[in-house]
């Protein structure tokens, strides 16, 4: 509804009682400005992030200079280190420095997104305050009609400010997903850094850092949303639950599993898939279902594309270790069979 001077609505209509003014006059009044002023004045404080003691851009710049040599140069420097301790120290320094830089960059990214949302929320709050105040001021039968029209106009402007509902609904979910994905990759990197450089060389760590970067990106999150739809259906059709026996938690059985996990780590490239393809002992239904879940619904027998080859060896080892940890049969026979299979493939 357009409010013109000729057709401006009278509050309470022609039968209004008392001294009520009209809406047009009220909207022009200093009262409206006073209502909105605190919201505008508080803009800085509603950004939702505390100030940093150090400027992010300054911190990032110093990290860039120190840790962001081109990957090839970093690897060259790494190769010049002869001793394991030196190599490991250099690897850890580079990775921790880059992790910190990526975390700072991600914080800036999130802040920018949150700011967008705050602007949108603030416009919504203002419209809510204006309508709430007008509702309190405006009595009479025509008031609801006028306010409804005005509300429509404000809703329209809200849409214009928002452009889309992206920042309102989708972005918080995507941010939560990005956080979770980053946590997952970060945990893997930390696990890697706990190992020596022969098991987790700098090249692998840099490659994992790339995944870390991707995990905190919108395209990365959207890709996961799509993939998770498939995963959820797998979850729905499987009950990943089992009952363990007392023998399963026997001290010796646990020690044997621990040893087998070490052996799996030491297998040469390709051997883990080799063993999984023709397991030396039966893999029970629970473990098979768990493996299937981790393979996005694919049966282990058909997982060649996911686990075969040198590039996929890390994943094949992860699956083998999962099988070793979860397989319900921890009898001496079963453990001997798994150990023998791994032993025969050791270099």
């Amino acid at each position, binding site marked *: 509804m357009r409010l013109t001077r000729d057709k401006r609505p009278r509050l309470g209509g022609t039968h209004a009682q008392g001294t009520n003014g009209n809406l047009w006059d009220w909207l022009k009044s200093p009262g409206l400005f006073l209502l909105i002023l605190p919201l505008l004045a508080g803009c800085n404080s509603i950004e939702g992030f505390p100030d940093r003691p150090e400027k992010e851009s300054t911190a990032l710049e110093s990290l860039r200079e120190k840790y962001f040599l081109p990957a090839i140069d970093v690897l060259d420097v790494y190769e010049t280190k002869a001793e394991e301790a030196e190599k490991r120290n250099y690897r850890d320094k580079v990775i921790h420095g880059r992790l910190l830089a990526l975390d700072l960059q991600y914080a800036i990214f999130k802040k920018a997104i949150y700011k967008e949302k705050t602007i949108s929320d603030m416009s919504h709050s203002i419209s809510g305050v204006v309508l709430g105040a007008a509702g309190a001021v405006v009595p009479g039968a025509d008031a609801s009609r006028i306010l409804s029209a005005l509300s429509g106009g404000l809703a329209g402007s809200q849409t214009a400010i928002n452009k889309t509902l992206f920042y309102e609904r989708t972005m918080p979910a995507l941010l939560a997903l990005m956080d*979770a994905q980053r946590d997952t990759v970060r*945990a893997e990197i930390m696990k890697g850094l706990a190992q020596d450089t022969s098991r987790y060389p700098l090249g692998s760590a840099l490659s994992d850092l790339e995944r870390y970067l991707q995990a905190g990106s919108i395209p990365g999150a959207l890709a996961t949303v799509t993939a998770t739809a498939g995963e959820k259906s797998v979850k729905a059709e499987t009950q990943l639950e089992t009952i363990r026996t007392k023998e399963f*938690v026997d001290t010796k059985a646990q020690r044997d599993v621990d040893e087998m996990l070490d052996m799996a780590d030491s297998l040469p490239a390709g051997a883990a898939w080799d063993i999984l393809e023709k397991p030396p002992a039966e893999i029970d239904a629970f473990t098979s279902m768990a493996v299937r879940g981790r393979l996005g619904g694919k049966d282990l027998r058909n997982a060649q594309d996911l686990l075969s080859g040198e590039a996929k060896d890390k994943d094949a080892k992860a699956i083998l270790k999962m099988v070793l940890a979860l397989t319900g049969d921890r009898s001496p026979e079963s453990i001997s069979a798994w150990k023998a299979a791994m032993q025969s493939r050791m270099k």
Partner: protein
Amino acid sequence: MPATIDTKELFPPGTTESRMKKEVDLRMKACAIRSHYTGDKTNGWVLVTTWNVIGQQ
């Protein structure tokens, strides 16, 4: 939503907490994202472990 799966294992009454801790260690060593148990020695334990889906983050 992260691309993960959870496994749930029920351990019998009488199992000591140190055995449960060892089970958690074994799962973490086997590349789990996280693993935690609830319960007690008298009533038994529930061990829930989260694993990543291969090929996704």
